């Protein structure tokens, strides 16, 4: 539940209204009594209604529909759709491919999460320093995030080529043999992690920066007066104050990686030897290539469960006390 409060606060810290009249004395608001908005509930609902209809049809209904499909053997090809109870879930539980996909997804998600949080926080701290040219750095460092998402895996596929930039400038310079990144089972997920990180670190950096700027300057001044060193100030002022932001970044990075399908579709199609067949690719292939809609829906429901559990865990870890 806290996440929501966090989001609301994040959103609240955004643009101040431009309207000059905003500065009405608080007492005036009080004078009007407990004014809570126009009392015509009908109109309030009417304003929400248009987008609500779209939400019902394109968000809420698909969830219900997915849950229902997961209990059937639906397939557009055989035109069947019989209720089969938990059969799909039982079949998934006995499917080693599914478990492999689950493990690979976990590896990819957490393998990306940890370095992304650390690096983007570090960069945010650097560009938050009062140094000349930090505005330029902020813009330049954001560039990977404006590259179209479809271009990212295409570009990195080339960079990870046996004769590509990663091998020639990094690996061979360090004295290692060139690695065939995307066709070796050990290196394919690390390659995904690097390319994913390149794309989302700038986004996380911007979220962290917004969080850092929300920490009042006088807290640092007070800590300085008390003789706190820089690492101490980071540990006892920055980190506690940044907890809600860390939560937002964690949930953001987890959802983004857990759902990622573009990279797999473009770079590997799940190979080599299923080493990059994540849950979302598993769902896509079973559902759309093999038309086993019911079976794929059961996997989709489990993916949603994984995301909900991951979010709940992050909420517990980064719970703020207010």
């Amino acid at each position, binding site marked *: 539940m806290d996440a*929501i409060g966090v*989001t*609301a606060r994040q*959103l609240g810290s*955004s643009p101040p*209204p431009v309207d000059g009249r*905003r500065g*009405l004395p608080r007492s005036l*608001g009080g004078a*009007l009594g407990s*004014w*809570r*908005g*126009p009392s015509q*509930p009908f*109109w*309030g609902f*009417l*304003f929400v209604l248009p*987008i*609500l209809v*779209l939400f019902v049809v*394109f*968000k809420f*209904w698909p*969830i219900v529909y997915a849950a229902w*499909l997961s209990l059937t053997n639906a397939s557009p090809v055989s035109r069947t759709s019989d209720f089969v109870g938990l059969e799909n879930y039982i079949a998934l539980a006995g499917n080693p491919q599914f478990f492999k996909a689950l493990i690979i997804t976990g590896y990819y998600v957490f393998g990306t999460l940890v370095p992304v949080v650390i690096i983007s926080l570090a*960069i945010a701290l*650097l560009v938050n*320093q009062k*140094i000349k040219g930090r505005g330029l*750095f902020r*813009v*330049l*460092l954001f*560039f*990977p995030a*404006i*590259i*179209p998402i*479809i*271009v990212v895996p*295409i*570009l990195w596929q*080339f960079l990870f*080529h046996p004769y590509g*930039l990663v091998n*020639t400038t990094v690996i061979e310079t360090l004295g290692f043999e060139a690695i065939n990144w995307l066709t070796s089972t050990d290196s394919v997920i690390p390659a995904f992690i690097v390319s994913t990180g390149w794309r989302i670190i700038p986004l996380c950096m*911007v979220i962290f920066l917004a969080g850092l700027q929300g920490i009042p300057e006088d807290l640092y001044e007070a800590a300085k007066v008390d003789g706190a060193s820089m690492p101490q100030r980071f540990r006892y002022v920055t980190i506690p104050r940044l907890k809600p*932001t860390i939560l*937002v*970044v964690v949930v*953001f990075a987890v959802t983004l990686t*857990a*759902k990622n399908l573009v990279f797999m579709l*473009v770079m590997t199609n799940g190979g080599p030897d299923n080493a990059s067949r994540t849950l979302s690719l598993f769902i*896509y292939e079973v*559902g759309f290539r093999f038309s086993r809609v019911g079976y794929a*829906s059961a996997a989709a429901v489990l*993916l949603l469960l994984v995301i909900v559990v991951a979010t709940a865990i992050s909420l517990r870890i980064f719970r703020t006390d207010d």
Partner: protein
Amino acid sequence: MFGNRMRSRLLSAATYLMLGACTILFLVPIFWMVSTSLKSTVNVFDLPIEWIPADPQFNNYPDSLGKQDFPRYFLNSGIVATTVTIVHVLLASWAGYGLAKYQFGGRQLLFWAILVTLILPLEVIMIPLWLTVRGLGWEDSYAGLIVPVIADAFGVLLMRQYFLSLPSELIDAARIDGAGHLRTFFTIAIPNAWPAIVTLGIFMFQATWDEFVWPFLIVNSSEMKTVPLGVQSFQSGELSNFPAVMAVSTVATIPLATLFLAFQRFWIRGVATSGIRG
């Protein structure tokens, strides 16, 4: 050991050094993309890397773009992203306004229901969504590309938050002056919300233009392809022609890069406030 001034100088030198290294690391792939797009296929892997091609092959651009109907893809992407942006901004503003400024039964429930969809990725509901949209007869159509995308929670929450900070006295005054609900919305709420509206508009346009998976599922014909689909199908047809693929990728990057440079602040503000949106 060091004086204070010396120390702060060392610190800022270290900051510049690290920032410089990160910036180079982040920009090198982009530079490689543009550089490779101007090479001939035989020179792609030449070492040492020729960062600025001595003999730039500008023809790569017309040659590769001519292989598919890219003008059509750009038109489609433009139509889809513009329509989604305009309709979403209007509907999300209405909803945000209704949730922020009116009391009605189920308001909290509605707010939470919309909020939780932030962690609901398309990939989880892609099968039922695809079946639903196909059932509506919208497969391979603008309607299929546009309408489902409008249902996005971020805008509703952003606008609600913004309208919460709009003094209710303003609305009250307009209402006392006899303005209707819609009129109050358009003359009081909207003119006060421009920064939020532009932020949301840029965010939605970028997100829609960039979306790959949904168009990939719903589009069958070449006439309905958006730019990301065009790039993907071009790439799968020209796997080893690196310069051609990089030329197409560069062209596909230009619209978003232009939008970013023009609306930098709003774009970054959108990202900073979106956070949780998957």
